[in-house]
């Protein structure tokens, strides 16, 4: 029954016996609907398996990858800015991917690294946050949400997942920003940038950051950080998606094409 499953009640025999497990073949009769199962190639190290299959008679399995994302805290909340490019090997799979997952009106998660890993685990995180809210009658804190994601990553450490995510929100402790990655690293901080373009973004936002910036200055800083990173990093590009986390929830600030921004900055520069 629906309530039975939502409440998370598990009988003793289930807790003992049934956990998330790796099987060499997925159970076709359940189709992975009752418990989450992952199929693993037999006798091979999963993290290196795909690399050995590539270039074998034209087989080339490339997964969507690559990004620049940044987030920083300042006096009036948290700014989150991401690019929108997904590349599969050398081919540009898409130039308008949404790399921010809106978990609830007070929590955002960014995605960098492997697109499928980030989409899947952050969607799972959104489900867990929702269940927490239903069971405990108050919203989950940013620290707890980031810890849930961190523990999911630790469960599959060494298996070749690639996730670099920032969990941003506003809870009873105020604005929160955590960086979580596939090694199980979980850091709280004022400013983070992830992805292959992060070095370029750090340069820009480090030089322009002041704690007492106005809201417009903060928006401009976030935009510039992503725009300049996409300008120099081949695997970042598309549009800048920017969100502002305020006390009463997040708002989506803008979605601007990077080439327009660079053109505008060029005009101002020379």
């Amino acid at each position, binding site marked *: 029954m629906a309530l039975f499953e939502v409440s998370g009640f598990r009988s003793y025999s289930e807790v003992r016996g049934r956990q998330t497990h790796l099987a060499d073949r997925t159970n*076709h009769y359940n189709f992975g609907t009752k418990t989450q199962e992952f*199929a693993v190639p037999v006798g091979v190290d999963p993290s290196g398996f795909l690399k*050995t299959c590539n270039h074998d008679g034209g087989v080339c399995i490339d*997964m969507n990858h690559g990004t620049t994302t940044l987030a920083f805290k300042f006096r009036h909340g948290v700014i989150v800015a991401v690019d929108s490019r997904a590349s599969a090997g050398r*081919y540009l*799979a898409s130039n308008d991917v949404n790399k921010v997952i809106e978990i609830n009106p007070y929590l955002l998660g960014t995605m960098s690294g492997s697109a499928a890993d980030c989409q899947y685990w952050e969607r799972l995180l959104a489900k867990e946050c929702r269940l927490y809210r239903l069971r405990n009658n108050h919203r989950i804190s940013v620290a707890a949400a980031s810890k849930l994601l961190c523990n999911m990553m630790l469960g599959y450490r060494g*298996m070749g997942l690639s996730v670099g995510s920032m969990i941003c929100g506003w809870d009873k402790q105020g604005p929160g920003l955590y960086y979580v990655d596939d090694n199980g690293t979980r850091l709280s901080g004022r400013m983070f940038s992830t992805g292959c373009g992060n070095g370029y973004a750090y340069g820009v936002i480090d030089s322009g950051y002041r704690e007492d910036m106005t809201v417009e200055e903060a928006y401009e800083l976030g935009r510039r950080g992503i725009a300049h990173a996409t300008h120099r990093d081949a695997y970042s590009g598309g549009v800048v998606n920017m969100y502002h986390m305020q006390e009463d929830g997040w708002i989506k600030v803008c979605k601007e094409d990077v080439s327009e921004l660079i053109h505008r900055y060029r005009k101002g520069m020379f």
Partner: protein
Amino acid sequence: MFSVQTFGDTGKMKDYHYTGPVEHRFSPYAFNGGTVLAVAGEDFAIVASDTRLSEGYSIHSRDSPKCYKLTDTTVIGCSGFHGDCLTLTKIIDARLKMYKHSNNKTMTSGAIAAMLSTILYGRRFFPYYVYNIIGGLDEEGKGAVYSFDPVGSYQRDTYKAGGSASAMLQPLLDNQIGFKNMEGVQHVPLTQDKAVQLVKDVFISAAERDVYTGDALRVCIITKEGIDEQTVALRKD
């Protein structure tokens, strides 16, 4: 252990022993070619694929379309490794039936896309070598296209090409449907007839330059009246 006795350069007999484990290079995957394309319009969606099944230098079949009908409003196109395409479509069909029996309604296109994402991710460590594109109508009757990578990352698009000739077709679609990077052009919305003609032209171009694409083109046009299938001949060389 396998021992071979042979004569060395100096005339002495040499023993050659193979010791230790021997690596047998078996790849569970094969590449069977094929191209798939989907376009979403205001009140229609088109999913098209060629029908050539190849492997290496051989053609296994000239009549193996890659579009599979899932529901009255959804068609999926799968290209890559044919074995995985068949198993994946069987699993999707079974899950659709299970949903229909539990919930007494057909799955919507968006729901099928979300479900496919989790099915593909369940094989994150031993992926299905399939590039999927779903085309159909959403709950409001508007055209929808969802494109996937082999491990389940997906997003909703207006148009997408996948498979062996995808890198050739996608820029052409960006230009003709998306009007990308063009100045002074009127953004005319795509009518159904223009879209079908564009799809046919685009595949004719793909067959010219991609060895794995050709033989015939199967076009599925999805409207609220149902799914209409057309077959068009392509180059057979």
